[in-house]
């Protein structure tokens, strides 16, 4: 899609790095002050400085890089499966109310069931390999992505579809050239949410069968009460989520350059 004329339509909507830096700075200051004041309980919250030292040590002995690599691969794969399935089913149900009536209650039933509670079952059926982990992540991502995509597709103005059909546009092109762009903002939001969940689901996915990974490390470090290491892991997760979110949001803004009003 051409982009030439886009800026004029959406001026003032480009992302700037200023405000995010401001909030990051504020959070850091707050954390530092709280840790220093000791209000957070003995040794339960490390100072930013202690955390940085821990991160450095983890970097130096290679665990940080290994964990990052392992978790990124898992989250990425799981996200890819879950998001693909969620988007696909979302388009189907958003477009076909009959299918939605069948699928929607199943999803509402599954949504409150924690992946962690299903881990023993998944172990029994799929073992402890990487595929089982991808499955856990995909499950969490799928449920969230589906709902938003379904909702977005279901709200596409009827006139767009009508126009396409009177113009003799076949089903496949109606999907790619009408439904997809019309629902694109919802899809982007769904994927942003899904990306966060992919990292969140690492906690359930790396519960067993992993020898490296951020959530694996969090759990083992937790056993030994190494709060500085745990903070490194938590911040890693946060930053990964933030990066994935920014990437998707940015890509979304580049793709969805038109205005609807």
């Amino acid at each position, binding site marked *: 899609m051409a982009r030439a004329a886009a800026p004029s339509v959406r001026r003032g909507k480009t992302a700037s790095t200023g405000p995010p830096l401001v909030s990051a700075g504020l959070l850091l200051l707050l954390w530092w002050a709280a840790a220093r004041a000791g209000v957070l309980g003995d040794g339960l919250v490390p100072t930013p400085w202690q955390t940085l030292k821990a991160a450095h040590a983890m970097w130096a002995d290679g665990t940080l890089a290994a964990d990052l690599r392992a978790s990124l691969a898992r989250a990425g794969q799981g996200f890819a499966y879950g998001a693909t399935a969620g988007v696909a089913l979302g388009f189907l149900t958003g477009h076909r109310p009959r299918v939605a009536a069948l699928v929607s209650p199943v999803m509402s039933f599954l949504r409150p069931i924690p992946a962690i509670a299903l881990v*023993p079952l998944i172990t029994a059926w799929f073992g402890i390999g990487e595929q089982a982990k991808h499955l856990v992540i995909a499950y969490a991502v799928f449920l969230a992505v589906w709902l938003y995509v379904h909702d977005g597709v279901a709200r596409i103005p009827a006139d767009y579809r009508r126009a396409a059909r009177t113009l003799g546009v076949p089903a496949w092109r109606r999907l790619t050239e009408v439904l997809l762009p019309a629902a694109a903002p919802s899809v982007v939001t769904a994927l942003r949410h899904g990306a966060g969940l992919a990292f969140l689901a690492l906690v359930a996915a790396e519960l067993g069968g992993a020898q490296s990974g951020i959530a694996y490390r969090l759990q083992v470090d937790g056993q*030994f*009460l190494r709060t500085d290491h745990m903070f490194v892991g938590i911040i890693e997760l946060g930053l990964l989520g933030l990066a994935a979110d920014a990437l998707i949001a940015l890509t979304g803004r580049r793709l969805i350059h038109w205005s609807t009003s």
Partner: protein
Amino acid sequence: STGAADRTTATTPVTIAGSDYLGGAPVYTAAQDKRWAANGLTSHLQSFATGRDALNAVLGGQAEYGVVGDLPAVSAILGGRDIKVLAALSSFTDWRLLTTTSARITSFADLKGRKVGLPEGTNVQYALTGMLTEAGLKPADVTLVNLAPNQITASLARGDIDAGLTFPSFYDATGTTLGTKYRELRYAGYPFRTLLIAGPGANTSTSTAVLRTLTAATAAAAKDPSAARKAVITQAAGAVQPAFVNRHFASYDYDVTLDRPLLDLLLDEGTWAKSTQKLPGTPDRATFLNHIDRAPLTAAAATAVTLPAK
């Protein structure tokens, strides 16, 4: 300043974070027998999923006392946290390596080159090290597979692992699930201790009253084990299976003590944890002695303290 509880009529509230109804049984039998009130205390018993969670509650000041396993306490001590070990409440040696007939493991020596699943960083990993050492093997001789405690059974059933270690509560279910394929190897080389620890908020007189209560409860339970079992079941209110309590209660050796083997265990576990997890702190006698408070137990039951002061 001992015996405050005897002199005042008002009771002192104590909050105890527990995680193990069997290892910490005296805490619950005391409650069932109204022994806390008899010693001038009003007990609030909190229950947590793991000893680590209970320990966190103590560290956060949400509870003055905690009933925790030995390893979380060792981690906290090495991490320089402000806790004191007041006493060991029980000792457990009935560990089992779970395996299947098809894995053909009949002794710990057969573990060489095999896949062993266990929740990494917990004391069953320490138990495995003991099993291997006993068979003349090193940790590097087996392939460790980190699994959640509740994944061991399924992984064994599928053959994803050759053997597994998990907590005693899973033993029976694993036997049932695997049926005739089930095989276990017993291991008594790790005397797991359940500890009473105190956070910074505890004072000696209250601690003494707590230990007096637990000592009395332990003595009473020794006289009438079946009543004690019933008391634990009642107090647990569904948190543990009655069948499990009845079957495993006898595996625990209840004695409120501070003894030499305890220090040795803490030292050994500390050394192990430091070497496998590169923990901070120095696992030497001085470190652990610094975190053991002999005064309350000495005041409550002097003969129970056999640990040398230096």
